């Protein structure tokens, strides 16, 4: 029933010193396993290599992010997430693991703008050290009062993932922080 599926805040957008946009439906799979022995299955199902600590790797239409010493997050098409989770379960048969589709438990936002402004806006809401966050590295952190993860897609675009139930809070928070007049000029 994908035609009836809706992301948390379809079409939500805000402008200012950076632009904030909800990215629509995004497939996500949580994999918990002993990462030292799951690389082969991961490669087979996602096409991506095992990421380093806090790293992200690219596969065929997929991306794999390191979440914790025994947890990965796989990003893929929304329609492919269920199959991806089943594929991982199959590939890891006989090995202790948990693979589950969590696409709808999350919301994802894109922030675009000039590199410095982008980091300034994020620094208003996250205690993470943004200067130390290289593109392609994912940081699990907080956006003020809620849990979130973020990474830089490029110098001028950041992505933010949060839980679906707090998507409105996170959007409001980012939109407020990006409001005109709020430039900091630090980064």
């Amino acid at each position, binding site marked *: 029933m994908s035609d009836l599926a809706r992301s948390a805040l379809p079409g939500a957008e805000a402008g200012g010193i950076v632009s904030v946009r909800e990215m629509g439906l995004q497939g996500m799979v*949580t994999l918990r396993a002993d990462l030292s022995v799951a690389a082969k299955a991961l490669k087979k199902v996602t096409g991506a290599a095992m990421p380093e600590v806090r790293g992200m790797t690219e596969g065929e239409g997929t991306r794999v992010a390191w979440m914790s010493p025994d947890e990965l997050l796989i990003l893929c098409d929304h329609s492919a997430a269920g199959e991806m989770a089943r594929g991982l379960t199959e590939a890891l048969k006989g090995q*202790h693991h948990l693979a*589950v589709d*969590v696409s709808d438990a999350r919301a994802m936002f894109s922030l675009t703008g000039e590199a410095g402004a982008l980091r300034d806006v994020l620094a208003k809401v996250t205690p993470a050290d943004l200067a130390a966050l290289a593109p392609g590295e994912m940081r699990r952190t907080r956006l003020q009062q809620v849990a979130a993860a973020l990474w830089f897609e490029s110098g001028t675009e950041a992505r933010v993932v949060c839980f*679906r139930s*707090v998507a409105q809070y996170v959007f409001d928070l980012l939109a407020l922080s990006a409001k005109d007049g709020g430039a900091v000029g630090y980064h």
Partner: protein
Amino acid sequence: MSTRLSEGGRLIDRSRKIAFRFDGKRLTGHPGDTLASALMANGQRIVGRSFKYHRPRGVVASGAEEPNALVNLGEGGRHEPNQRATTTELFEGLAATSQNRWPSLDFDIGEVNALIPRFLPAGFYYKTFIHPRPFWKHVFEPFIRHSAGLGRAPDPRTTDPDRYEHFYVHTDLVIAGGGIAGLQAALEAGRAGAKVLLCEQTAHWGGRAPVDGVEIDGAPAEAWIAAALAELEGMENVHLRLRTMVAGVYDHGYVIAYERVADHVAAPDAPRHRLWRIRAAQVVSATGAFERPLSFPGNDKPGVMLASAMRDYLVNWGVSPGDRTVVVTNNDDAYRTAIAIRKAGLDVPCIVDARDTADGPLPQEARALGIPVKTGMAIANVKGLRGVVAVQLCRQAGEGAVIEDVICEAVAMSGGWSPVVHLWSHCGGKLAWDAGGAFFRPDHEKPPTSHDGEGFVVCAGAADGALHASEVLGNAGAATGRALARLGLSAPGRVATASAPDEAALSPVWMMPQGAGPKKRAKMWLDFQNDVKVSDVQLAAREGYESVEHTKRYTTLGMATDQGKLSNINGLAVLADALGAPIPQVGTTTFRPPFTPISMGAIAGEARGAVFQPIRRTPIQDWHERNGAAWEPVGHWRRPYCFPRDGETKRDAVNREILATRTSVGLLDASTLGKILVKGADAGRFMDMLYTNMMSTLKPGRCRYGLMCSENGFLMDDGVVARLDDETFLVHTTTGGADRIHAHMEDWLQCEWWDWKVYTANVTEQWAQVAVVGPNARKVLEKLGGDIDLSKEALPFMAWAEGRIGGFDARVFRISFSGELSFEVAVPASQGRAFWDALLDAGAEFGITPYGTEALHVMRAEKGFIMIGDETDGTVIPQDLGLDWAISKKKDDYLGKRAQERAHMTDPARWKLVGLETLDGSVLPDGAYAIAEGVNDNAQRNTQGRVTSTYWSPTLEKGIAMGLVLNGPDRMGEVLEFNTTRKAARGEDAPTVKARIVSPVFYDAQGEKQDV
């Protein structure tokens, strides 16, 4: 009268004028003015009244240490009390009013207090207003509140129109203070490659070096400051922030800075304040020093100012303090003020120097300018009611016999300088007494330490006690070198050299004249804002207050909004003298952050209005909002309590929702229910430990209700477990329990059973869950179609199935919390809203009725189902609730088992769950107690039970309740009396309500309705 000079003022732009208002008067100033400099330029000598005696007060300082010039700033939503005029930048349209005066600043009724100060000595309130007791609340306190207090609180009907924000920064070095020491530190650290954040609280770099005529590397300080800034601005690793005050230093290099982004703008589109939350490896405190007042009689009168402040007003803002200024000092630095005043073309009738000799370069220069220097002299009295008109001189060594009167309009006083050691002290840095300078300086051997035991704060320049310009830069260079070394960096390049005329040693003067009698001592102000005088501190010492901390609280010395920035050292020197102890032995009071008050807005940051707190939303929340839901907070969720229709009360709505559900079909958004996956070879074993009953025997495709207890045996959560496959369980928790129970699971798995093969995942938000409830529930779902056989045979009570309902991906659980035929259907959250809409469509012909949490609660209570948080409160065990059937006797262990075997837990006298029915059909008050015979040791009525849940049942048309009652299950049919909140009639006992003990299952005891 103070006024603006025809020229001078390095910080003001004389080509432009700014209009502002003070107490309604229209005045003008220039860009670059502070409110204080503008008020003085307009001849406004009295700017406020003191706290206790309502004495007229003028500006005394030029910066953050100002105790007197506090104003109500702004109007309406932007009104703020207690703003320091000395740190308020002037802007077009600024409106300020004076504080603590009635009816007007020039004529104040409360000033009568000042005529009788002997009635208000230290500790006066404690001693006087004790008896009779009721007088405190009804007579004394209202009177004191009216006469005391500073600014006016903001009008609660207004809303602050501005926004605020936080800003997180990680850096190697934070430098507090942008004077020449701070600039030198930044240059050195920047050149060494460190990441630097340099914060200056004012709007200008360079501190007071330009005012004091300091030369650096042979040129005026301004040139060096400009060059330093140019170099720093060119460094990518250095950030410079003006109007940003380092407010506090905390453990592990956490530093708070307060940026006044738009305080100098009338109606900003920028955030007004920004709170910087900084992680710094090292902190350099280049915070300078404060000048100390001298304690002579009448030192609080308008026109008496700190010598350095007077110099600031003259040089920075072109403001004259008056035509004739007497300088009174115990050091050479104050001569700079006399020289500056003379060079501005104004008169200095004399310099009163408490020392016996004054022959250094500065005194010589003053003499050369024709200023009489009177050594060994003191001020015996200041004449003038609303401001200085003359001073009377005496010998410093004597008791105050007047030798001569000197006509003047202003007095510049200097009692020496104290390093600003606040940031060093916030996190535990210790101080050492410097006898030569008569001040406390940072003890380098005892710095505030970080996680590794190493110091993480250094003081640079005057803040380290290097008060003379020639020492400042060398000291700052060395301090920065120490900080850089801790970062593993080394400082390249040379440190600049500053020079200024030499200064002779000061002579500590804590009282002027030194032999002053009681009358004079009662006119020597230590703390200007709180009206604490030398006599008050001496009285405290006589009354036995030996600890400086006790004296502070008894006298209120240093407890005003300026936190004793001017009074601290003078006060404790007086105390030390009174106690006959050396000053370092008496010690200082504790320096705590913030350095000066920061706004509540900055602390709250963005967290107001829509983002005050995250409100969790289900995928169906929009529908609830549009359909008029009344809300109930459940954790961070807002759940519909009920859906009142036009004209309906909430109670009407709840009753309608229940009856519609029981007679046809209702719909509940149960998406908030916790859902946790538990998977692995040891999942069954883990589930058996988590739950009191046996879960490992549950078959795939089936559901089982279970109870979870804490280690101490208390019931902490309940819910239905579905077995998905051999290795996988889906745990349903209460709405509020999802995160807590997930953490509880991970705690046990990570800390205790780390070798068990179990993974968990909280998938609560992956699913939208809708309960379709009532006799027509199956018909509605069957109408939608799909591939799941929903018949009783294929999907019996407590079974679950996966497949499609209509076109939706669904898991259907045959579970019931209402006693009706019920299907809880989970669909992916993205499909939740569409599924809800489809159910409403399909159910229209059955009058399908969305219901809220209250209907849910009433229906479960009618069935006698317990609710976590109602029947449990952290002290209740499953056995109390008659849930013995859900406690496995076969299992060796489960969390809470051993605790439940303790004597207190097996005590037969524990109150147990029963149903309660009032004799008159009314609803029992929530939380009411069943009264018993007699009273306890506290003369309170004995009790034998309490109500845990109580509702009006529209199904049964009477009040129903559950409660915990002593021996309850053995007392069926017995009638108890419950207390109420109704008042007793005169002479009678408080009214009670009678209720009969019954089974807690009020509705369909056989469970036939849910099993169809």
